[in-house]
């Protein structure tokens, strides 16, 4: 709509009334005909994610050094041999980061799966069953959300003990309410549509109404939520590692690397800042993709 008005403005720029109406509107140049996945806002994050995914899947093909290999040069700054410098054991920071990609990506993806599955089921039950079940479940979510994110993750991670599975569970459970709320809102709007009533009138069972008519309509907002959720899951997981509740392994994840590097800030800027850059690049990419998906699936949210 904004574009149409803007082009009218171009035809008759001196019409005063038109000027007032379009003063605040978004005018822009006509869009070039490029496939959507080639636009920089989508191609760039996809490229970053593909590179990180490659690191996660086949780190031994990419990493220049073995991540457990302790060289002679301790805390040496970036140079031609060690592009990202070395750590306090003389290990190559770039190789450590490449091997750490697997932990970080796995954590983010699995946590979203756990949170999305549990949250999706709760939201579906609350939205579809309605009335009392809805009230009880929503109250439960209120309680769930009353403990701030990282604090709840700390309690769960501490209660379960440190391992990759438990970090995934902790982060996943913390993010359950946001998926549940999106799911519930979507189910509520779909439930009152005419085609649900038509399906019921034509003798569909409740199970098949849910599976074939309600669920498909919830997929796109849940997909947007899940994509954006990967970013926040990685951030919460990295914070857990940073605090010291993550997995301690000879293939450390980025959050743990960063917390190690913090002890050498004054002498080795690269050790803490470069793993952090990797986390940030990944989360930015995921968020950009999530925004692009949201623009596509939910035009009302377009900015």
């Amino acid at each position, binding site marked *: 709509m904004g574009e149409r008005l803007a082009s009218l403005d171009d035809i008759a720029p001196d019409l005063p*009334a038109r000027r*007032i*109406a379009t*003063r*605040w*509107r*978004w*005018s*822009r140049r006509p869009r070039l005909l490029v496939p959507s996945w080639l636009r920089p806002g989508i191609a760039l994050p996809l490229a970053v994610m593909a590179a990180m995914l490659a690191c996660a899947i086949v780190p031994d093909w990419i990493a220049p050094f073995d991540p457990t290999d302790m060289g002679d040069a301790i805390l040496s700054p970036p140079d031609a041999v060690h592009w990202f410098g070395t750590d306090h054991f003389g290990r190559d920071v770039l190789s450590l980061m490449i091997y750490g990609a697997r932990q970080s990506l796995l954590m983010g993806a699995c946590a979203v799966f756990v949170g999305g599955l549990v949250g999706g089921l709760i939201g579906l039950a609350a939205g579809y069953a309605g009335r009392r079940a809805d009230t009880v479940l929503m*109250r*439960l979510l*209120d*309680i*769930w959300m*009353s*403990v*701030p*994110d*990282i*604090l*709840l993750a*700390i*309690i*769960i991670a*501490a*209660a*379960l*003990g440190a391992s990759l599975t438990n970090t995934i569970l902790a982060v996943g459970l913390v993010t359950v309410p946001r998926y549940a709320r999106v799911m519930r809102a979507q189910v509520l709007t779909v439930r009152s549509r005419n085609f649900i009533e038509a399906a019921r009138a034509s003798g569909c069972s409740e199970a098949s109404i849910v599976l074939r008519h309600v669920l498909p309509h919830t997929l796109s907002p849940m997909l947007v939520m899940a994509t954006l959720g990967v*970013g926040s899951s990685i*951030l919460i997981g*990295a*914070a857990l590692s*940073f*605090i*010291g*509740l993550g997995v301690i392994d000879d293939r450390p994840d980025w*959050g743990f690397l*960063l*917390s190690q*590097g*913090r002890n050498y*800030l*004054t002498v080795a*800027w690269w050790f*803490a*800042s470069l793993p*952090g*850059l990797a*986390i*940030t690049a990944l*989360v*930015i990419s995921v*968020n*950009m993709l999530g925004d692009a998906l949201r623009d596509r699936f939910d035009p009302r949210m377009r*900015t």
Partner: protein
Amino acid sequence: MRFVLHRLAAAALVVFGTVTLIFAALYLLPGDPAVLVAGENATEESIARIRELLGTDRPFWAQYADYLAGLAQGDLGMSFATQEPVTVRLWAQFPSTIALTLFASVVAMVAGVLLGIVAAVNRGGWIDHAIQSVMLFFTSMPSFWLGILLILLFSVTLQWLPAIGSGSFAQLILPMACLGLVASGRLMRMVRNSVLDVLDEQFVVTARAKGMPHRLVLFRHVLRNALIPVVTLLGILVGELLSGAVVVETLFARQGIGRLLVDAVGVKDIPVIQGAVLLASISFVLINLLVDLSYSVIDPRVRAEG
């Protein structure tokens, strides 16, 4: 009035549920705290005696009932590690966390609201794009990484500000900037959307049409209406800041509830963990309650629905 009572009851229920949730989660904590309290060379007997003393040998319901009874009298139990009352340890740390979150929320509000308005007014222009890009950066970076960059720049390279510790105001500047900037990204987005919505309203067009100056329309009509929904964000903002404070306090080696919590987790000091999380959660619930109530005063339309 019914609205207020309804909200109060809901908040009380949430607090009660939170107490139960935290208690149950920590009851499942593996490892015997008595072994940790007893130290390394303790005999079986002394561990058993300490277990009895701490009361951790009793069944779940007995411990839970006891905890609730204590809580009703404002008693959060004794710290396993230092044998001080938990409330004493919490109150010693709380002011530092309040100062940090308060100043950080000022940073977040100023940055978020101002930039949100500027971005919305320049919709589609390069200023809008620049602000949105920078803010995407802030929302996507881990708070501890921003903190490390700030330390590297202002403490290590320029040597303007102290990196760690708490007490003086100079030591507060980096943590509050770090925490506030990370939280400001989301705020800016919401403010921008909210202002954009109002800019499309008919009354803005009318005001412009009758020849009202640009700036006056912005202040008298647009901002007044656009900033109402932003009030609700304060609640979310506080949650984010309390979460972030845990990490930021650890990074900058500041006193505070977050650091107390992280230390307590390290030594499985359950009463302190319970107390710290409970304090943070109750503050969070109370602030959201206040936001809810004040929102109904600012915008009477809400009361009708509640």
